[in-house]
């Protein structure tokens, strides 16, 4: 196989964590206690300088996206044996319709045909796919797995209740007081930003308007001018964001899909182009829980992929040269069982795929491929996790957002940067 190898042993080691884990824990405790004792700790940390206007965009694919049918291991016979009804045809399979065939990436892996809009970006060296990636959570529960990932933990227990992005904002040495530093597109604050007092959740920029007149606004300004309680602080933050959002230039007219993710990406691009200090953006796309009739070249999974591929392609086109300063991550809580089930679908599995696009991305398919033969699977028949998702995210924070405090963002992790981001 031609896929790049990344020699990673910390998953295997984390399985037998015991003594080492305790040592990590103790040094962390001492470090953070020392920080807590002195306000100087804070000041000492606040010296870094971020690369100009860098933004990281996290797209969370909720429901467990089927990595094996997204980045298809078409060089694996075992894949075709395990999925007689669902496998995506080999790139050269003349018996399949051309539009149902895998789009070859490197002779071993290829993209689902619905991801065709991403092929030019891959060709330009803007994209990476990391396969057999995931957390150590083996619960097969969406909630547990999402809760672990959004908190930046190996698995759902034990751990900190705040989100990994919130801890990034707090531990970052970069000074960024923008009211739009961290934005979640969607109704609620995702768990990854929980605990960040300066994050903003909004449904849509167009709707982020106060429905009252100037007099009402002035009165709110007075009422929220002082007061240190969390809701009054949040109110001040919201008022600041309102001012910034009102003066945004109009969004791009470039052809984004009308879907939530398409419109969400359009708005993130609008914020980036407006230079409002956007550092972290979060978007969600749900609907990946394909237990039944997930389809092959067409069907449920294909239409999901079509939507996200068109959205990301439009995003890259819209931002043009600015993409050098924007890193998009698409992640999911877990992948799906290798063998298809009786309902032409797939059940909850373990490892899946992560997609990187834009600034700093080291292009290619990166994986320590665990194989798909039965004796190579984990749990009830899952693709093994060979890359800890936290190392990839820690590297992005360190290299793109200049936050080296990986152990604060990802408690318990001994970071090993895999070299997927420059």
């Amino acid at each position: 196989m031609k896929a790049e190898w990344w020699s990673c042993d910390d998953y295997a080691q984390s399985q037998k964590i015991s003594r080492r884990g305790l040592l990590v824990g103790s040094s962390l405790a001492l470090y953070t206690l020392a920080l807590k004792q002195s306000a100087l700790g804070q000041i000492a940390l606040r010296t870094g300088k971020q690369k100009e206007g860098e933004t990281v965009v996290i797209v969370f694919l909720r429901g467990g996206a089927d990595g094996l049918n997204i980045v298809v291991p078409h060089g694996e016979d075992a894949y075709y044996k395990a999925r007689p009804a669902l496998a995506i045809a080999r790139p050269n399979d003349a018996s399949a319709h051309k539009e149902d065939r895998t789009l070859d990436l490197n002779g071993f892996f290829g993209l689902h045909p619905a991801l065709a809009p991403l092929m030019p970006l891959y060709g330009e060296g803007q994209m990476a796919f990391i396969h057999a990636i995931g957390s150590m959570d083996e619960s097969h529960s969406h909630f547990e797995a999402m809760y672990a990932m959004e908190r930046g933990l190996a698995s759902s227990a034990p751990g900190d209740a705040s989100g990994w992005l919130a801890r990034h904002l707090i531990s970052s040495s970069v000074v960024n007081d923008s009211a739009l530093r961290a934005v979640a597109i969607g109704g609620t604050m995702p768990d990854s930003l929980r605990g960040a007092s300066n994050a903003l959740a909004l449904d849509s920029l167009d709707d982020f308007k106060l429905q009252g007149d100037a007099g009402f606004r002035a009165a709110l300004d007075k009422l929220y001018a002082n007061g240190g309680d969390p809701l009054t602080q949040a109110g001040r933050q919201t008022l600041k964001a309102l001012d910034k959002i009102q003066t945004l230039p109009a969004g791009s007219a470039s052809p984004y899909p009308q879907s939530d993710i398409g419109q969400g990406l359009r708005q993130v691009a609008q914020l980036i182009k407006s230079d409002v200090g956007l550092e972290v953006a979060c978007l969600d796309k749900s609907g990946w829980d394909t237990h039944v009739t997930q389809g092959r070249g067409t069907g449920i999974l294909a239409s999901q992929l079509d939507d996200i591929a068109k959205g990301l392609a439009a995003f890259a086109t819209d931002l043009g040269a600015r993409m050098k300063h924007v890193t998009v991550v698409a992640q999911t809580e877990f992948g799906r069982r290798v063998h298809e089930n009786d309902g032409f679908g797939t059940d909850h599995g373990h490892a899946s795929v992560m997609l990187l696009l834009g600034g700093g991305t080291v292009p290619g398919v990166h994986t320590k491929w665990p194989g798909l033969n039965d004796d190579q699977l984990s749990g009830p028949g899952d693709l093994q996790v060979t890359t800890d998702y936290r190392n990839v995210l820690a590297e992005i924070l360190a290299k793109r957002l200049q936050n080296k405090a990986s152990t604060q963002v990802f408690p318990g992790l001994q970071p090993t940067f895999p070299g997927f981001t420059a």
Partner: protein
Amino acid sequence: MDRRDVLKLGLAGAGIAALGGCSPLAARYAVQEDPALPLPPRDVEPEVRLLNRLGFGGRPGDIARVAAAGQGAFVAEQLAAEQKEDVRLDLLLAGLDIFSMKGDEIEDIHKEQVLFELQRADLLCAVYGRNQLFERMTDFWLNHFNIYALKTDSAFRLAGDTRKVVRANALGKFPDVLRASAHSPAMLGYLDNTSNKSGVPNENYARELMELHTLGVHGGYTQRDVMEVARCLTGWTVEDRFLHPRGQFRFNPDVHDAGSKEVLGQTIPAGGGQGDGERVLDILAKHPATAKHLSTKLCREFLGKEDPAWIDRMSSAYLASGGDLREMLRPLLTSQDLLTAPPIAKRPLDFVASSLRATNANTDCGQAVVDHVTRMGQGPQLWPMPDGYPEKAAAWSGSMLGRWNFALALAGGKLAGTNIGMEASRKPIEEILGRHGGADDLLGPTVNGLNTPEAAALCLASPEFQWR
């Protein structure tokens, strides 16, 4: 101390947990405590505090009513929960299909419609219910035994669950709530006990039963206890056989693990069948850790903090009375401490319900209201995790604009299905809000120049009204 320090403390806590070699179970929720954050200065009138703490805030006239009755009599009335309900509530609830249909008929309705009716019912009860303490406890239990309506068939099963589990026992005895929840098809489906079978037990429900519902994470159980409880509960499932009453609780002996088990040091002999699970519920309900865990949560709910003396007192009342919630709550609710405890942040549901009550609104709690609450992040029955909506103020930092726009829509008469009429002046709201210490000073000069709906909206949108 700011958020940054708080989170640092959290990290330190995680490290210490690892250092001490605690079980992962014990550490899981060990780091969530926020040290005290600055709160708005409050010197609250006792009547306002009672209405805010026992229920979802006052309606015009309530302050005078509570003042005339006094704390003891008002608490007694609310603990009895025998107030005749507002006829509007009866009529509006009677119009909901989920309460008029029988058995699995409900599955003929669209899932979205079922969810919408469940959400409406929750809101209607909070807004119109005259037994406000009962409604607050209902909200408490809906979070304590949280079920996510969008997981598989949960929405259909929740219609029965809310009535049979929560509303039947909201102020009763905890062992009864627990037992009803454990036999609830909605819960068994939500926490995957329907896939808990002999040989390959699914631990999901067994774990949350101990961690969230009874003992608490520090309650002294081990991973082995989780596995043994899961074995006891094998076969507790939901009826799905042809010609049987679909969607009801069912014990399936064919998939039950018949061997003997040991739970928290007690042996459960082989061959107990469904009795194994019943025995587990019994052990858990009588456990002192359960008394402490529940007392701690109730203390946070009503006192806004974890007060060791009150937790001890309530735990003792639990153990002495067999988990009688009235016995646990009465001393706390009639105490001076309740009146002087720190303020609690209103979650969006609380904010919306108290706004509708303060303005004496006529509302169908229809799509417009449900949409507002959902946009603020607290759509009823829509929290995916089993731990219930967050209690911490900081989790709701994204809801401020939503609160202000709701206040403007409500006071400006722009909320479909809701009408506050001509008397919706600032007066009734100021009656509720103006009693809050400092609010008079703050709002007095600020509202000058605003028209009446705007002044009313500003009362609801003010920092003071976001706390209870």
